[in-house]
């Protein structure tokens, strides 16, 4: 069965085509979802892509989270559908309250485009713990922040998905490119079906272009999509 992955296109999305290309490269079918659509097409997973929705004006994700498509994504997530937010997608998920915390200006204030390593945490189906993934980041506002209580809850409930690390998997401030609290690069929601991350896995799947640390992320997305599709009531045969 070919999995169908919806990629929401907001005005200002930049890496939407890139996410769709990655989905196709890995054997899925990519479907563009327009931000004004209040209803998702029949899909098994959703990606909120990177970019600068609404120019990042006011705050990253602040305007996009009101899009009709986001209401549909919220419902999709509530029903257990897997949702992956990449970079601006992560920022939108936080703004929408689907993930805790927020992303603010990088500690160094400058935009950073660079290959980094991140270490996986929070083992689950399709997501082994302790893998070190080479992936690129490219953002100006990727510093993850949350109140101390919120951070405690995030750690306590093991919601961290990715932390910045050395190529050996050592987590240390030296490898933290933006000042994120606890070196957090990616987060799960409590149910484990929504994943937000600042790095760009869609730019790390094609060996012609560089390392392929992004494959792990899509493996999870596809595993979760398969499980979700399997559990969903099938349309009655006509």
């Amino acid at each position, binding site marked *: 069965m070919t999995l169908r992955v919806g990629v929401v296109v907001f*005005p*200002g999305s*930049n*890496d939407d*085509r*890139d996410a769709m*290309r*990655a989905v196709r490269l890995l054997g899925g079918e990519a479907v563009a979802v327009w931000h004004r659509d209040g209803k998702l097409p029949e899909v098994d997973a959703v990606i909120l892509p*990177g*970019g*600068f929705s*609404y*120019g*990042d*004006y006011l705050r990253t994700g602040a305007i996009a989270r009101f899009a009709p498509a986001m209401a549909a994504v919220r419902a999709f997530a509530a029903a257990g559908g897997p949702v992956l937010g990449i970079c601006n997608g992560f920022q939108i998920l936080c703004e929408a309250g689907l993930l805790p915390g927020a992303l603010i200006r990088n500690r160094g204030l*400058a*935009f*950073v*485009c*660079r290959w980094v390593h991140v270490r996986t945490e929070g083992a689950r189906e399709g997501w082994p713990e302790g893998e070190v993934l080479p992936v*690129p980041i*490219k953002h*100006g506002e990727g510093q993850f922040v949350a109140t101390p209580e919120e951070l405690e809850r995030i750690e306590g409930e093991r919601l961290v998905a990715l932390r910045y690390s050395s190529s050996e998997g050592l987590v240390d401030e030296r490898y933290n490119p933006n000042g994120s609290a606890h070196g957090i690069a990616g987060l799960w929601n409590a149910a484990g079906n929504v994943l937000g991350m600042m790095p*760009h896995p*869609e*730019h790390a799947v*094609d060996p*012609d*272009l560089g390392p392929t640390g992004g494959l792990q992320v899509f493996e999870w997305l596809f595993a979760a999509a398969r499980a979700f599709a399997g559990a969903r009531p099938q349309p009655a045969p006509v």
Partner: protein
Amino acid sequence: MRAEPLHRALGLTDEEAVQVERRLGRPPNPTELAMFAAMWSEHCSYKSSKVHLATLPTRGPGVLLGPGEDAGAVDLGDGLACVFKMESHSHPSAIEPVQGAATGVGGIVRDVLSMGARPVALLDPLRFGPLDNPRNRYLLGGVVAGIGQYGNSIGVPTVGGELKFASCHGPNPTINVMCVGLARADRLLGSRGGGPGDLLVLIGAATGRDGIGGVSVLASRTLDADAQGSRPSVQVGDPFAGKLLVEACTELVERGLLEGLKDLGGAGLTCAVSESAARRGLGAELHLDEVPLREPGMEPFEVLTSESQERVLAVVRPELVPRVQEVCERWGLSARVVGKLRRGGTLRVRAGGRVVAEVPARALTDEAPAYRRPLERPHVLDRIREDDPAAAPPPRSLEEAFLAVLGSPGVASARWVFEQFDSLVQGNTVVGPGADAAVIRLEGSVRALALSTDGNGRYGFLDPYLGGAHAVAEAARNVATVGARPLAVTNCLNFGNPERPEVMWAFAEAVRGLGDACRFLGTPVTGGNVSFYNESEGSAVYPTPVVGMVGVIEDYRLLSRTAFPSGNLAIYLLGETRPELGGSQYAEVVLGKVSGRPPALDLEAEARLHRLLRECAAGDVVASAHDLSDGGLAVALAECAVAGGVGFTVSVPDRGLPPHVALFSESASRAVVTARPGREADLEELAASHRVPAVRLGITGGPRLRFEGLFEVPLSDAIVVYEGAVPALMSGRPAAASA
């Protein structure tokens, strides 16, 4: 005192005012005069440069669109066209670096968009004054932030550029930007499509009082203390609106809804409408009341010359207008019919129910004045050129000289700059910034574009003819080094005040050098930009022609990279080294002088090297390749080592040259390569067959850069010096190299 006549206040000379009246057969009204002033400004009319630019080779088998359009285009085969152009945004950036640079990116992107192409890459050649001056740091920081803000937001990868320094760029930073786009060759939008009756649709942002008189005041008058006074005409870029324009325009083109498209840049609507009409041999009707305004009470002349950003003018068949508007509405953009093309050649402008201007469209465009300004070779040059740095005594310590050159900011890594740019978006970046040429694959194929921008101001100063020729040769060499075939050239010519005969002489020489090199290397010039008046406080920029080269690589999987990939590889120097330190990085950094003659350029040898490098890549004979430029052999070897994290041991061939000359000579037409294991003989044979000298220098490996019998440096130190120089300077601390 009597008030200055209006035409002079607007920047027209008395003679030009007479010409305007002659073209009209009557005195112009103030609105018309403003239109002429904007269109006949140096920036829009190229009146001082036209006669020289006409000598450039612009034709070739692959050229689809040459100069004269918003951007040039070459055929890539497989039905694809590459559209590309370079432009300067130096003057606005000197006044407000963030917005100046940002709007520069926006402008060049719209130029490429206007030809019906999707922008796929940006490159940004940058030149500043020395970084020990806080104002220069402020300018560099601001320009980089501005380029990032715009380029990153619109989703076009910034994949290359230059970062150079010279005192002359302190008061006159030189900010160029190149955009490259791809289009279906059969969908290219020249200014030939469409005809009488087609409508003019203004798409994008509302028109405000941005840059009113900006063209003539900001760009065509020498920048000086009174630039303070021109501050309110700074334009603020809206990258989000720019992104929407990119998406809307590419969709309009894909759907085949447009007959033509023009960017609104210098001289705003006046330029876009008059050129749209004149190039088709037509006239037009323009209704200013239909133009969406951002501010109340704008005068017709303001609406006509406003340079508000994020606007384009489309030529649309009447029946297709609703579909055009529908696409624009989807992207949240306004699209308003503001006029119509008509027979007869007259541009008639209406506002408030009356005709406010009526002029022949061609009088504004093709019939603008052209000057053959006086040229004079500056005699001081003779003395400076006689002072040959190769005749100076050798440095006290070669090692110190090496570290000083490697850590000089014009040689050291530009990572501090390019990490602030998204180089990956669009997912086709095979090689991003930090290499000889950037490589962007053509989606769905193994073919790729290779892109490089190059210019050397010191060479331009010492010998503008060679400065022009070297810029082309180096850009082509960079493209050939990765394994690509150079196809065509765009350029930006950065000079001082053209009314000064020495400046004009240098300009003419540079253009001659550029043209000769392009003719010889078979890379026609498809477009470019001239930036004059880069002088203030009595000092002009070096004559700086900057070249943007587009090449094609047939299989990007076989490209050559700079980095030494592993140890135990034989290192070769290709090409001949002569005692050429004139205008070199070494002379500037170690001897503190910019003097002598730039390296000679044998274009025949250059072309042979390019063919060799290409065959080395295609035949998978080499494991790495890097051309030699600033800093010569020593720097090139260090860059290969730093990039790969692999040291080397070499013995520098003496051939009668003192070691420091052999290490730092900037003789042209050279490269360092490593042979694939077991392919050494093939490499030597191939080099011989192309009549390119190839000397085996040594071997890769180990944790040190070892120049046998001379000195050695730990690789880790070299990395600190090379990578640390610019960040240290930008933080206001002294560089590691001088510690």
